[in-house]
């Protein structure tokens, strides 16, 4: 047990810090629209040209091939430098690309991986459907083999950045007679194909973060299949282990910064007695203290995952504990912000705490709801029995 970073790790941190100091964009990200896509892509391009794209991707596929500890240092320094979030490149970099690396053909890797790293193409996810959310394997979108193509009909939902995406990780049912998990295939869908229609969903924040996607006789070449026909569930498990294991690391690190700004807010906002700053209110001070301790524990959970990764390559089910803890804490941080703001919380500004509060519910739903994480913890960490009626 030790907390020491090697001198190479320390040097890496300095290099990252120097490079970010020179290269982080001065202007803030536009909140949405094509300008946001361009901003994210340009930042990815800048990282690629600086030699920093794909920190944890294997070097044979153009990544930096660095261990998880360096990935954490990278995220820490990005947070410190106020570097832009990964934005529209989240899926490509964090689970689309890694899935291709794990399960894709050489041709698929050769086309997509360098383009993802350069920020040339944007990926999105096409997993959930209106009737297949937590019960993902109940998906109904059909794929029928016709010559060298799969003809796809159906609908996906909750697809983040669909309107910005060039490609999609798409799950379809290719054998309706097979078992629930046995008839699914994992496809790379070109979002510009005829028959693909994207309809943005306005969320409670007032913005359209995700969309519905409709497929009408969309012809996807069989060469775009990742893994074998009807073997898509195995590929999906790889995608989800990346999504639950490491994809949220930057968000977890970012949350510590959010808590520090919450403490600043409490120093600069008049408290419930109408006279003293909010931080001098006993109740608020206690809540802030506990949240600061909990965000520290979140950091330790991340460090524990990094420690485990020294011994095994694929993230284990413990990742669900980190995700659950992170989601719960994310919401409580914003609830506390509202408590500190009092009546001011009603006054909405585009990037203020009220918007963050309304947006924080996503963390407890996306990437597997907190209830699904609790099932995984119960069954795969603690070994509790599954419900045999659950198919």
């Amino acid at each position: 047990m030790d907390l020491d970073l090697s001198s190479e790790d320390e040097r890496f941190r300095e290099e990252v810090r120097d490079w970010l100091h020179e290269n982080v964009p001065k202007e803030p990200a536009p909140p949405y629209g094509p300008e946001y896509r361009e901003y994210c892509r340009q930042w990815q391009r800048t990282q690629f040209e600086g030699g920093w794209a794909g920190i944890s991707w294997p070097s044979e596929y153009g990544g930096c091939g660095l261990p998880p500890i360096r990935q954490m240092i990278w995220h820490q320094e990005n947070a410190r430098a106020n570097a832009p979030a990964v934005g529209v490149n989240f899926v490509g970099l964090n689970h689309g690309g890694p899935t291709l690396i794990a399960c894709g053909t050489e041709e698929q890797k050769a086309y997509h991986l360098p383009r993802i790293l350069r920020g040339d193409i944007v990926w999105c996810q096409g997993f959930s459907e209106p009737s297949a959310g937590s019960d993902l394997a109940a998906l109904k979108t059909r794929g029928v083999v016709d010559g060298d193509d799969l003809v796809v009909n159906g609908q996906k939902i909750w697809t983040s950045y669909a309107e910005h995406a060039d490609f999609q990780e798409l799950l379809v049912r290719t054998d309706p007679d097979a078992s629930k998990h046995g008839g699914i295939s994992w496809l790379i869908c070109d979002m510009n194909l005829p028959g693909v229609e994207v309809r943005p969903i306005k969320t409670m924040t007032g913005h359209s973060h995700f969309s519905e996607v409709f497929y009408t006789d969309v012809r996807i070449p069989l060469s775009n299949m990742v893994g074998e026909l009807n073997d898509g569930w195995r590929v999906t498990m790889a995608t989800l282990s990346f999504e639950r294991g490491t994809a949220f690391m930057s968000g977890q690190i970012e949350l510590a910064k959010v808590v520090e700004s919450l403490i600043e807010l409490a120093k600069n906002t008049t408290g419930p007695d109408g006279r003293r700053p909010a931080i001098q209110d006993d109740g608020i001070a206690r809540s802030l203290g506990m949240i600061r301790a909990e965000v520290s524990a979140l950091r330790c959970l991340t460090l524990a995952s990094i420690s485990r990764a020294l011994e095994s390559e694929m993230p284990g089910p413990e990742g669900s504990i980190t995700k659950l803890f992170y989601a719960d804490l994310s919401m409580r941080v914003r609830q506390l912000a509202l408590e500190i703001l009092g009546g001011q919380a009603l006054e909405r500004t585009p990037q203020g705490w009220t918007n963050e509060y309304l947006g924080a519910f996503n963390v407890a739903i996306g990437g597997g709801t907190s209830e699904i994480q609790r099932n995984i913890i119960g069954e795969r960490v603690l070994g509790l029995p599954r419900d045999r009626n659950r198919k």
Partner: protein
Amino acid sequence: MNLLPDSQQQEIIDATAGFLESEFPLSRLHESEEPVPISRELWQTMAELGWFGLGLSEELGGTGFTLAEEALLFRELGRVLAPTNVLAASLAVRVASLAHQSELAESIIGGNQRVAIAETADMESTLGENVTGRFRCIDGSDVELVLCSSAQGFALVTRDALGQGDVVPCMDEHTHLEIFDIGGLPALAFAPTEMDSIQNRGSVLAASMLVGSSEAARDQATEYAKERQQFGKPIGVFQAIKHKCADMASRCEAATWQTFYAALAVRDGHADATFQASAAKLLSAKAATENGQANILVHGGYGVTAEYDAHLFLKRSHVLDLLIGTHGEHLTRVLHEPTAA
């Protein structure tokens, strides 16, 4: 950077767990409704195992390990709801050593003098060369020394000098609770809070015991949920129970890694050591008390019976929670102390 125990540390864990399983089975707590002090013989064995000086360097007469290994030991002690005397002895050894009372330190390390901890019970207590104030002494019915603890530090006094205190029935029937009103009693040795990060060490060790208790409660609830059948299936199938157990696991993980991190930050003298130690105490107290409560609820009616173990974890977690600083003190520290860079 690696938070996982290495192979030598794993050996300490395994050896400790094996020893405690035979010497401190939970069944012992059903054989008596009174607190049973650790026997002289068992105390001597623990001394021979090197527990009381485990984290003290060999040149100071200790076993030569560090706070990290102590944290692993105390986690195991917490798991079997061992009395708090080992914690008291470990801190007392360091207090004596810091006060250059090497004979006293040696005597405690060797098991010749047994120790109990007494936590301040009022705001007026003062610790220094003399001890004044009201203190709640835990597990002190058959010891030679008492380690008084407050935000000012730790002071060691002889049990005899305290005379007869006010023995009060404890919420935890297996914990001996005695209240002393002390007026200007000279201390055998005193170490102020900051000296050698002594209070942070105490916080980490108490946190480690709380972690062990929270893990044992989690394991007990999980095992029960696998066996107990209702509606024709194990109750662990139902999400109402499964999710309670998952939340117990989540609280344990957060508390465990925060405590291990704190042990290393204090050991290595990091600038955020006080923050980390107090965060560990807060997180582990939350995990132990909330898991103690959940364990009772998972057991249903059996959970509130004296015959089952579930209530024992809850009660002991409240005792441990009382040690080395109040919630309010730790919350103030985590709000104002510097965090990790």
